Structure formats: C-alpha cells, structure tokens
C-alpha cells in the first residue's frame, strides 16, 4: 500500500457498548469523511489494534508492528467511558502503556459530567473529553489530533531511535526533538499534542471539552425545547 492510499482517509476506531451510540458515532465520523471501525468493548479494541496480552512484554520487537500493518492503521481512537469490563479509562491506560499504541490519540466520551473523571482522563493522556450525545461540532475538533504513521514499517527497522524518541517525549516534553522525530515517524502532530496536553489546563480555547464550568462553554449550551422559542422546522 502506497502513501497515497494511507493519506486518502483517516481511520478512526470507535469503541462503545451501546449499539445506538455506535451507530451515531459511526454516522458522525463518516459524515466527516473518516473511515470508521466500531467495536463494542475495550478488549476488542485492543485486539483490533494488534495488542495481544502475549506481546506486551515484547513491544520493541518487529513482529508487533508488522501485525499493525498499513491496512489496519488507526489514526485515532474514540471510546465511551462507561463500559462493562474494561472502561474507556482502562483502555486509554493500556494504550499509553504500549510503546507502539501510545502515539495513537485517544478521545473519551461520557454521558456524565464528572470533573474528576474528566481530569483523570486528560491527565492520563486523552486528547479530548466529549459529553454525550456527541455532536458534529465535537467531531470537527478531531482533525488536528489525527496522527499518520506514514512510515510505520520503516520505523521498525530502527528500534533504538524509536525508543529514544519515546523517552525524550516523556522527560523533556518540548518540541526540540521534532527534528529527529520528523525523520523517524513524522510525529509533528504527536509532539504538538503532548505540548497541548501539558500546557492546556487553563486554556479552554484549544477545544478541550472539560465541561466543568459548563456555563462558559459556548458551543454546548444544551438548550432544551420547553417552550415555543427556537423551534426549527425541518424539511428535506
């Protein structure tokens, strides 16, 4: 598969135990021209991503990457928080613990606005936290987070550089290693994301859906149609 095919569409993996919510998120993502795969549990998500229990100890080996080949490249994972078994938070954690999955951006969705939950997820490395029901305006915020592994197979041949890059990302948290990372995995987006994560606790304009001060977020005013005003007539 050439680079042209990989660039054509971003592939999003959506995880939710509710069938209705899976249908919804799939439609929202397809409307935004993403390729979508949906699964109904965290464990199936990890399976799809190519992470099996037995491989966790061997993350720096070539065989792990080869399973996650070009045709199942995932550019973003969006997951529900409340799921039986493995929660969205557990899934997030597992992905961040895996050296070949941690670069995939993760977005969490939840029907409940619990600030401590939201903070926990953001601190663990989630890019965004969306309140359900998810809207098109939320999905529009995903594009900047999309990560492309243009040369994922080539990276496997240079395992040392990849590991070095990851350690630096954890310790330095600056953009100084972009020069090196550019050569390796085109991880511009990823470094920017790390910066955003760290610098962003007081910056709501970057699209973080913390929703703690719900009255201040302009695009989710949650109007309810209890009276005559603001009725919208639909005609196709």
């Amino acid at each position, binding site marked *: 598969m050439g680079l042209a095919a990989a660039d054509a569409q971003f592939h999003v993996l959506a995880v939710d135990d*509710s069938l209705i*919510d899976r249908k919804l998120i799939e439609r929202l993502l397809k409307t935004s021209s993403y390729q979508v795969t949906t699964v109904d549990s965290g464990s199936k998500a990890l399976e799809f991503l190519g992470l099996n229990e037995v491989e966790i100890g061997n993350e720096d080996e070539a065989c792990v990457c080869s399973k996650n080949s070009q045709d199942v490249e995932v550019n973003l994972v969006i997951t529900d928080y409340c799921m039986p078994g493995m929660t969205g938070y557990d899934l997030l954690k597992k992905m961040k613990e895996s050296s070949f999955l941690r670069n995939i951006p993760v977005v969490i969705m939840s029907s409940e606005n619990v600030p401590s939950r939201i903070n926990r997820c953001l601190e663990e490395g989630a890019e965004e936290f969306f309140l359900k*029901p998810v809207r098109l305006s939320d999905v529009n915020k995903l594009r900047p987070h999309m990560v492309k592994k243009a040369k994922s197979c080539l990276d496997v041949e240079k395992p040392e550089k990849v590991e070095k890059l990851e350690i630096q990302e954890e310790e330095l948290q600056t953009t100084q290693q972009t020069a090196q990372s550019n050569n390796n995995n085109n991880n511009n987006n990823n470094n920017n994301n790390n910066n955003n994560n760290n610098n962003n606790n007081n910056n709501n304009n970057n699209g973080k859906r913390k929703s703690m001060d719900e009255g201040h977020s302009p695009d989710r005013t949650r109007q309810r149609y209890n009276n005559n005003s603001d009725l919208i007539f*639909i005609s196709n």
Partner: protein
Amino acid sequence: MLGLSVERLRADMNRLLALLFHQGVLDEQFLQLQQLQDESSPNFVSEVVNIYFHESEKLLRNLRALLVDKEFSDYKKMGTHLNQFMGSSSSIGAQRIRNVCVAFRAASDQNNRPGCIRALELLEYEYCYLKNKLHELFQIEQQRILAATVRYPMQQQHHQQQQQQQQPNNP
C-alpha cells in the same frame, strides 16, 4: 394535485415535530439525527429509532420483571438498566423519557420500591406516547416521499402545468 399533497404532508410533519418539541418530548438531539440523514444514509433516523424501540422494550420488560417481585432488592441491576435507558434516550433526543429515567434512578438509589413502580408506569406511558408519535412521523414522511416521486403518465402534463402555477417557495 400531487404537488399539494407534498406540501401538505411536509406541513403536517413540521407541525407534529413542533408539537413534540413544544411538549419537551423531543429535544435538539433529534434534529441532529435528522441532519445526519442524507442520500448516502437515507434511512438513518428510522434505523436508529427502531434500534431504540427494540432496546427500550427489552429494558422496560426487564425493569418490570425486577419490580414485580415483592422480594426485589437488586437495585444495582436496576440502576444498570436505567443508565442504559437514559443513555440511549439521550442519544436520540427523547428528552421526557430521559427525565423520567433520572427520577426513576433517584427512587432506585433510595431503594424506594413504590417510587420505582410509579416511575416505571410513567416511563411506560411516556415510551408509548413517543413510539406512537414517531411512527406517525415516519408514516407522514413515507407518504411525502411517495407523493413526491409518484408520477402518473397520463397526468404528467397536467401535473407540470400545476407545478408551474404553484411555484411556492419550497424550503
């Protein structure tokens, strides 16, 4: 004649929708569903709503089965069902049902069985009402689609003349 039908049916649909919004039965999220429907996914709303009906009826049966038992004590299980019902209702914009679920869950959290039974009855009522209204909505929509696409060969010329006469502002 056919042109009139389409307009009248469209007006009927809008009137029904307006009523449902006014009553708080539906909220903004239902509009979001409609906006996601297009040529590439022309039955999206009815597909999702039908899944909702199917799941809801199962949940209602489960809730009733739990509460019918006088010795019932598994409020945690009831809470799980309610969370699911709340989530799916919220996802399709069934605002009143969702609100009843909230009250139901409050009763459940207090282990208040009579309160739960009352809430369940209200829930069943609201669900029936919504189902009837949405069926009505889909029926009107189907009729409108039919009216818009049916062309009788003999009347085609006549119809075209009529269309020219009544070129109202089609939204």
